[in-house]
């Protein structure tokens, strides 16, 4: 990518829209691959693969729900790693702050999708929208945890201070995830025996075309994650440039108007 100073410039006499560079070819290639992969997954999942012996047509959620859930955990993992890299003095760079914010935001979207698709699946197989299953409960808490993190990121302030408190908050939240999972699992296991309706047991029956479709789902959605991450990262960079240079551009435009008048 080009250096920030060449990205947003007053054009000509300072009148007209600023020039913004285009996304890198890598990001566009990833985006194209993600779209094709997802389309093929949908085709395989809805038309090619057979209905499941036990779950029937509902098994088709298998091609979408686990990959979406995987992305939310991956995204929060990436956010935590980049936050740690930002806090580490030797690797401190605005890049890691942008990456953490972008990844957490994409992660929250995918966590929302995980909860929605999980609820729909639960309604179809268990007969209810919600059960206090350890994974479900952990995911729901994760969703609100990172909504809080994003809310904190949105609070305006000096860049370094914002980035540092966001990074610390991301790590504090991430450390909580295993504790939440452990406590919730324990909480449920004391109450009832592990449920036979656990969605993971469905995986025992996965084979052949179903397995390949699910794997393709994982790959396509991971590509989609990288694509979204790349675009969100770019947007964050433009916002920073806008914050630092926007005023100067506006001033230059006003001055140019004054000269014409």
């Amino acid at each position, binding site marked *: 990518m080009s250096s920030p100073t060449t990205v947003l410039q007053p054009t000509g006499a300072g009148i007209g829209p600023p020039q913004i560079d285009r996304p890198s070819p890598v990001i566009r290639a990833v985006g194209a691959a993600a779209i094709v992969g997802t389309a093929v997954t949908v085709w395989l999942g809805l038309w090619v693969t057979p209905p499941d012996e036990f779950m029937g047509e509902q098994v088709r959620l298998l091609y979408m729900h686990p990959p979406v859930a995987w992305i939310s955990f991956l995204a929060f993992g990436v956010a935590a790693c980049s936050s740690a890299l930002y806090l580490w003095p030797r690797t401190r760079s605005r890049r890691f702050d942008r990456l953490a914010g972008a990844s957490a935001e994409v992660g929250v979207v995918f966590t929302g999708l995980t909860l929605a698709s999980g609820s729909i699946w639960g309604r179809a197989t268990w007969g209810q929208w919600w059960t206090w299953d350890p994974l479900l409960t952990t995911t729901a808490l994760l969703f609100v*945890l990172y909504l809080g993190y994003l809310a*904190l990121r949105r*609070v305006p*302030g000096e860049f370094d201070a914002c980035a540092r408190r966001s990074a*610390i908050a991301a790590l*504090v939240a991430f*450390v909580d995830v295993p504790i939440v999972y452990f406590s*919730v699992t324990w*909480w449920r296991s004391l109450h009832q025996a592990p449920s036979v309706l656990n969605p993971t047991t469905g995986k025992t029956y996965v084979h052949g075309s179903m397995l390949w479709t699910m794997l393709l789902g994982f790959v396509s959605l991971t590509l989609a994650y990288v694509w979204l991450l790349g675009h969100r990262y770019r947007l964050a960079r433009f916002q920073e440039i806008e914050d630092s240079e926007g005023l100067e551009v506006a001033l230059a435009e006003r001055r140019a108007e004054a000269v014409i008048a």
Partner: protein
Amino acid sequence: MLRDAALVAGKDLRIELRSKVALNQVVPFAAAVLILFGLALGPDRKILAPASAGLFWVATLLSAILAVQRSYAIESADAARDGLRLSGLDPAGIFLGKAAAITAELLVLETGLAVGVVLLYGAHLAGGLVLLATCVVATIGLAAVGTLYGVVASGLRSRETLLPLLFLPIVAPVLLAATKAWKAALAGTPTHALGWLDLLVVFAVLYLAIGTVAYGSLLEDG
């Protein structure tokens, strides 16, 4: 570090003793919450008594938010926070001191709440030692997270709404573990509480450690 912590804790507690804001506002708030739970769940003691452990801890969590906000409200007046930064005290000491003061205030409040659940919900307090140990360890965990997020949120314009959103999901395991430990103790099976107590200890130690390391840079940013 510990000397600094004692100084800060002493200062915070002295302010609370003199201003009595915690006594006049947080304690009545907790009482109101207990009464509202009673209204929400109905007058039937068969429902209220088994739920009393959970309701006790939810009331404690909600009061903890107020205690943390109060703890940072006293720093925001008269540029006290700048004074704290200039005082040359060890930031880790400041963190531990503020957490200790919040712990002490919440423990006093929990004593009142325990009386409340006995009187209002008809709970029978049993396994006193386990109850007490749970209160101490869980409250240290709450205070550690609260002090850490309190300094993150303090000085921000939206701190009143941001703090509960950040604080409550993080302390969900404390609510869970403390409630289970209390339930085990009240049911007369205190040995079942030991695992949950371990979890509370891990939580408290972890967040005390994070706070001790991270507090300095967070305090500087304010």
